[in-house]
């Protein structure tokens, strides 16, 4: 089996309402050093070992896990058995 971590974030320039809200809340709490907060999604996939495994994960991202109109994604292959953070 192979494990992949997928991080989905808004593309540059796309307004991120949850991120902006968290940014303001942190500022209200006195953390005035915070310049920017971006909130995205974390997805972890465990898949059978197969030829072109990473390409298929990319395909899954393009089709379903991310919306290419507004989101970017980053795939990281991780050691099997690693505990998800």
């Amino acid at each position: 089996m192979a494990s992949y971590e997928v991080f989905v974030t808004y593309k540059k320039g796309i307004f991120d309402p949850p991120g902006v809200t968290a940014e303001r809340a942190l500022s209200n709490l006195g953390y005035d050093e915070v310049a920017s907060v971006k909130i995205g999604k974390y997805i972890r996939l465990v898949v059978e070992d197969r030829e072109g495994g990473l390409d298929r994960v990319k395909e899954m991202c393009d089709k379903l896990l991310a919306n290419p109109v507004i989101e970017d994604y980053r795939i990281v292959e991780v050691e099997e058995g690693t505990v998800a953070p």
Partner: protein
Amino acid sequence: MRFGVVVFPGSNCEQDVVKACHYLGLQADYVWHADTDLSGFDAVVLPGGFSYGDYIRTGAVARFSPVMGEVIRFAERGGPVLGICNGFQILTEAHLLPGAMLRNRGLKFICSDVSLKVERSVCQWVGLPAGSVVRIPINHNEGNYTVDMGTLMRMVCYGQVVLRYCEPDGSQAPEGSAPNGAFDDIAGVCNERGNVFGLMPHPERMVDPEASGTDGQSFFQAIVERLASV
């Protein structure tokens, strides 16, 4: 004239659409999302709701329901398709309409009547003259429409911006009139051909004057008149 109203797991406005159609003297029947046959329908409506619990993104899973292949073919043949609220979200995910939805600015679920200005467009679902103002409710958490500037310019050129949020007098507030933060106050868009139309407001809830009002009637009537004249 027969409307097919698609029911996804988690749809919750399909009855409103069917009742609105019946009120206007139109035939309407439910189409289960696992069906793959739209023969016999003159128009297809994707209703509001929370298909598949809005998981991953609104409309992202419903877009792959078995019926959607047929909805896409129906649209490609020029068949009229209307997506209301979650239906609009599904149509953007299916790339039948440009753009995408973000969470409302301010993160609030918004349920209120809004004023909408009818823009000059190629939309076959619009019978009102450009500049008309209608009042129709919105009811959503993800109606913050976004689209890149290049695509928007193209949409404006092709007459694909159909409805904009506005002030009651039809003007645009300088800070924007969209309660959800939608880009360029956009509330409804159509494809280049004008047969596929998506909007966040719920015209089906403004059909019966005894219940609410009549500002939603014209969208259904426009497509019926258009189909009758073809």
